[in-house]
């Protein structure tokens, strides 16, 4: 019994990693740019689709195909540089409208370029098998995803806490005008953060490609959950995003076992409870 529960939990944690990769970028972008980017899920989708195209071009080698991910950076750069930048000083409603417009545009472009039908390339060789965990077969690919997710978490922490660039980002997040006055080139920093966030989501999408079926609109499915993760964890807090992604992964996995009827509602209930008791999120900073 205990083993079955641990196994179920491990499955939940591994699948939470996709959510974490999307939520990390969403939270980072919100924390620094103060923009709630609805189109963030689109980067997840585009990451999957660009990798898919590269996969076909490179004769099915998944690792080589990941080289297509910088394409995400170009798209994100264009979106920030030419569009988003013009609405930073406007009301939130404008930002939501603009980023929502991008959701529709990206969805339709994806449909035009890759077709409306879902696609599902094979699982990369070497990772398409199970290993024994707690006496039962567990997908090696899920272990790999867990590893990537944790490594990304550590990497991001080091980047933000231990590098000069990270200090600049934190400074700009805390007080944009002061940072600017001190000679930090804030617009350029914003672009970089936006591109980094998009790349994280794109990586999540790319890594989901071998075991999910990708289709236009897949971005919307994950962005809603990613929003919940960010709200629960605390807007702008990466630690919060990581832990709340894990929490939601576990809620899913155990909800399916113990409360299948309410399973879908559990994440929303969690969010509601957090918003009532701790509106700034579990790891967020209370403002004002």
């Amino acid at each position, binding site marked *: 019994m205990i083993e*079955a529960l641990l*196994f*179920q939990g491990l*499955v*939940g944690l*591994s*699948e939470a990693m*996709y959510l974490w990769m999307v939520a990390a970028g969403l939270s980072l972008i919100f924390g620094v740019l103060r923009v709630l980017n609805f189109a963030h899920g689109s980067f997840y989708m585009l990451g999957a689709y660009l990798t898919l195209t590269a996969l076909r071009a490179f004769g099915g080698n998944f690792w080589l195909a990941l080289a297509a991910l910088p394409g995400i950076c170009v798209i994100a750069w264009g979106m920030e540089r030419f569009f988003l930048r013009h609405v930073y000083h406007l009301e939130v409603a404008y930002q939501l409208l603009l980023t929502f417009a991008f959701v529709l545009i990206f969805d339709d472009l994806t*449909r035009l370029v890759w077709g*409306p*039908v*879902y*696609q*599902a390339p*094979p*699982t990369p060789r070497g990772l*398409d*098998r*199970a290993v024994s965990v707690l006496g*039962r*077969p*567990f*997908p*090696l*690919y*899920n272990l790999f995803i867990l590893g990537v997710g944790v490594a990304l978490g550590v990497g991001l922490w080091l980047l933000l806490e231990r590098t000069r660039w990270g200090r600049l980002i934190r400074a700009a997040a805390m007080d944009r005008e002061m940072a600017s006055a001190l000679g930090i080139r804030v617009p350029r920093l914003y672009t970089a953060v936006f591109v980094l966030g998009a790349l994280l989501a794109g990586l999540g999408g790319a890594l*989901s490609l*071998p*075991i*999910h*079926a990708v*289709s*236009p*609109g*897949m971005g919307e*499915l994950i962005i809603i959950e990613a929003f919940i993760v960010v709200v629960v964890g605390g807007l702008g807090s990466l630690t919060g995003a990581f832990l709340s992604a894990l929490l939601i992964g576990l809620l*899913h*996995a155990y909800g*399916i*076992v113990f409360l*299948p009827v309410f*399973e*879908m509602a559990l994440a929303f209930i969690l969010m509601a409870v957090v918003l009532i008791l701790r509106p700034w999120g579990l790891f967020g900073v209370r403002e004002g």
Partner: protein
Amino acid sequence: MRRRDFLKAGLVGTASLLGAGALGPGEGGAAPAAKRLTKPIRIGGQAVMSGPLGGYGQFMRMGAQLAVEEINRAGGILGAKIEIEFRDEELKPDVAVRNARYFVDVWKADFLIGIDSSSVALAVGAIMPQLDRVLVVTHAATEKLNEQLVFKQGIRQVFRISVPVYQDGILSAMIARDFPVRTWATISPDYEYGHTSWKMFRETLKRFRPDVEFVAESFAKFGTVDFGPHISKVMAVRPEAIFSTEWGGEAVALVKQAKLFGVFQNTKAWMCGMGAAMDVLEGLGKDYPEGAWVSCRYWFQYPNTAENRRFVSRFRERWQKYPHYVSETSYSAVYALKGAVEKSGSIETAAVAKALEGMTLTTPAGKRHIRAEDHQAVYEVPWGRITHDRNYPFPILTDLRVVPADQYYRHPPFA
């Protein structure tokens, strides 16, 4: 009146005189077949065209489109050309009801076809008396459509050309009874179709095999991409076989993930009612485990008739693809309407519905008999096992099992 108009009027007048004259005295009521329709016939189709199951809409449209092109090239229906338009039902009843109203009220559709989701079919079916058009459902499989809506509530406008869940829930059990399997579990969609099929499967199998036990079930919400928690939940009790009614991209994701969890090595059988849909075969390709038991609503290699071979080759010529089952059902739906309009000599709903009742059609999927009582087309679709064949760019079926439809369809009065 200009000269040309005058001539035209004269021609029409003469033609109609000739037409009336041709009947001659004593022949009484005009033979319906001699009747000519003056306006184009409009067919409004709807299917899911977006999202993870969006492939269905494309395939459905291809089939209907092919039928329309063939018929129009051959002179139309009683001289009238067919016009067809498709809209996205999004698997949402409210959207589909809006589409149906648009088609009838604004676009002036004469007939409606399509619909993928069971709940959508029930919602649209319920307003058909009000819209008063014939609706031919080409995919949604809930037995409530024919058993309740048509048979019990008497909604005469609704028909279904495709197989009901009897295929997924009853025939599956008739095949599974021979398996050396004592414990079954399911991972299926958490809506009408998934629950009904599993219930039918359990009830039918239990009748044949009282020793069988159903040890676990996990129902996945629409839009599920990670089946991991569902797989690990049911595999925790080590069932000997898995029954699933996931479909489209969700069936693809489920099979891929189940493979990673070693499900196919640790169970004796895998059954999936829609696992032989062309999109799933293409989606999984070489990843599809050999020997999995699958079915659908039409398999392009069955039956081996001239009709079917001709349809497959025409379809491939037109679309460079093998037909999906919804391509065949929508193709046959258009032909069924053609047959009914020609038989009744009318496009009036009551007349066409009456003509469809009891009609037997020769279609690519074989002979279809449309039962008068519940408006359900009765025909056979095989179950079979996945095999990889180098002559096809996707896995195909082998070891086909066909059971006479009468033996696995439920019959009116559905006691």
